[in-house]
């Protein structure tokens, strides 16, 4: 057992370096009860794989099936807002279990196959080129502001047939939705503002696609309503979800990956020798080494024993991708950034029936960005080592990443 336990998952040192904290848990108490939030923390790679592949034991309907109050605690006057959040989140397809989850996923799954996402590569490549042209002309770049954010927003908005001029507004709403992974006492206000704003924004787009469907992704969701798989509220919520999830996690892949590459000159050299040939494996290593998503939650559907501990029915169970991807039992030299690593069975996209729907799209965007950076900015380096992360236990998200190449 741990003698002293830091139980505040939102403390500045855990946010700054989750690897040290969760790495220690993984070694000493891999199925750990966090008293503060009444929550199990799962940190080993093999446990995470086992858990995510036993979806019948661990429900994804974490908002609908959790009878306890929000964690961390929220302002009591915001309990009404929390009910709104529960209803909103509860209608996301990812917050469902089989058989409903399978039925919902099948509406969307075909849009995101590796083959159909590959067809988007030229669009992604052109978009990367345009953004890097602009950065080059300006002579400086904040990777977060000028590349990692605009690229995935541009791509998902194009897929969804969202007007170009609305992209900034979507990002502003998305930033409010990110309060879901934070611990602020008063987070329900910005969060529900973001949710209501999204619903309001996508509603007329859906009305239009119901009557006049196209080949965009909102039309795919609208078809789900016609088939009776989705209610209108579910179409609204899932359109919003895809707009957000379709870019937020990729932002973190691009930023965290660029940071890792600039911090490891030997690996940057290696990538530069053959950017087209090595971008694929480099992207996998970026996904593993500093994963875009830190952790995800489930609710136990029955009593389950893991490593001698009994997880009771309805217990909250949170699994840590960031820790599993640094598990020395799963990866030799797990804390070493190695773009030639093979095999690389990281769990950045989760595993099992809920494996990330947009995984291939994220991969394509990562590959194109890391390749283009290596080809165009051989002297790329971070401007500062003084970097700050968003205080989230869900997303591993830098606030900014200024770089130079002169």
């Amino acid at each position, binding site marked *: 057992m741990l003698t002293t336990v830091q139980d505040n998952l939102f403390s500045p040192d855990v946010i700054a370096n989750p690897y040290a904290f969760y790495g220690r848990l993984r070694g000493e108490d891999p199925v750990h009860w966090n008293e503060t939030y009444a929550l199990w923390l799962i940190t080993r790679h093999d446990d995470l794989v086992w858990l995510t*592949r036993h979806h019948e034991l661990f429900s994804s309907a974490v908002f609908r099936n959790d009878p306890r109050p929000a964690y961390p605690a929220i302002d009591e006057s915001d309990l009404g807002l929390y009910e709104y959040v529960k209803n909103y989140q509860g209608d996301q397809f990812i917050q469902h279990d089989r058989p409903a989850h399978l039925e919902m*996923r099948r509406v969307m799954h075909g849009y995101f*196959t*590796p083959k159909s996402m590959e067809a988007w590569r030229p669009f992604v490549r052109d978009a990367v080129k345009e953004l890097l042209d602009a950065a080059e002309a300006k002579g400086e770049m904040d990777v977060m502001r000028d590349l990692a954010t605009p690229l995935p927003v541009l791509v998902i908005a194009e897929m969804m047939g969202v007007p170009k001029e609305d992209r900034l507004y979507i990002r502003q709403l998305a930033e409010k939705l990110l309060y879901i992974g934070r611990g602020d006492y008063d987070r329900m206000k910005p969060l529900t503002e973001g949710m209501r704003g999204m619903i309001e924004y996508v509603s007329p787009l859906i009305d239009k696609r119901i009557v006049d469907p196209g080949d965009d992704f909102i039309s795919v969701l609208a078809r789900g309503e016609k088939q009776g798989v989705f209610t209108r509220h579910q179409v609204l919520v899932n359109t919003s979800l895809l707009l957000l999830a379709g870019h937020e996690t990729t932002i973190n892949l691009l930023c965290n990956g660029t940071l890792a590459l600039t911090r490891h000159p030997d690996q940057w050299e290696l990538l530069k020798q053959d950017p087209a040939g090595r971008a694929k494996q480099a992207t996998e290593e970026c996904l593993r080494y500093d994963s875009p998503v830190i952790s995800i939650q489930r609710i136990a559907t029955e009593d389950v024993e893991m490593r001698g501990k009994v997880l009771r029915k309805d217990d909250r169970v949170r699994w840590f991708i960031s820790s599993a991807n640094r598990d020395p039992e799963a990866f030799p030299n797990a804390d070493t950034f190695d773009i030639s690593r093979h095999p690389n069975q990281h769990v950045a996209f989760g*595993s*099992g*029936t809920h494996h*990330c*729907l947009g995984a*291939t799209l994220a991969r394509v965007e990562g590959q194109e960005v890391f390749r283009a950076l290596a080809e165009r900015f051989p002297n790329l380096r971070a401007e500062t080592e003084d970097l700050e992360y968003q205080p989230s236990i869900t997303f591993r998200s830098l606030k900014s990443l200024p770089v130079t190449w002169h």
Partner: protein
Amino acid sequence: MARKLKVWVDPHTCVGNAMCESIAPRVFRLNENRQSEAVDPAGDSEAKILEAAENCPVSAIFVEDAETGERLFP
């Protein structure tokens, strides 16, 4: 007479998404690791098997003509 197929799943790539099992349940079945295995390449039509292969999110499914060795997917 439908041609004979050779179908297999790469265990190092399969993430147990189980979409293949839902599309062609007589061909693909999850094993004790909750990874897919091709248990009967003649269990469903070639079209269903190719649909399952195409819908694998990590491209872990391989399909060949059993007699000629011609790669049908990917």
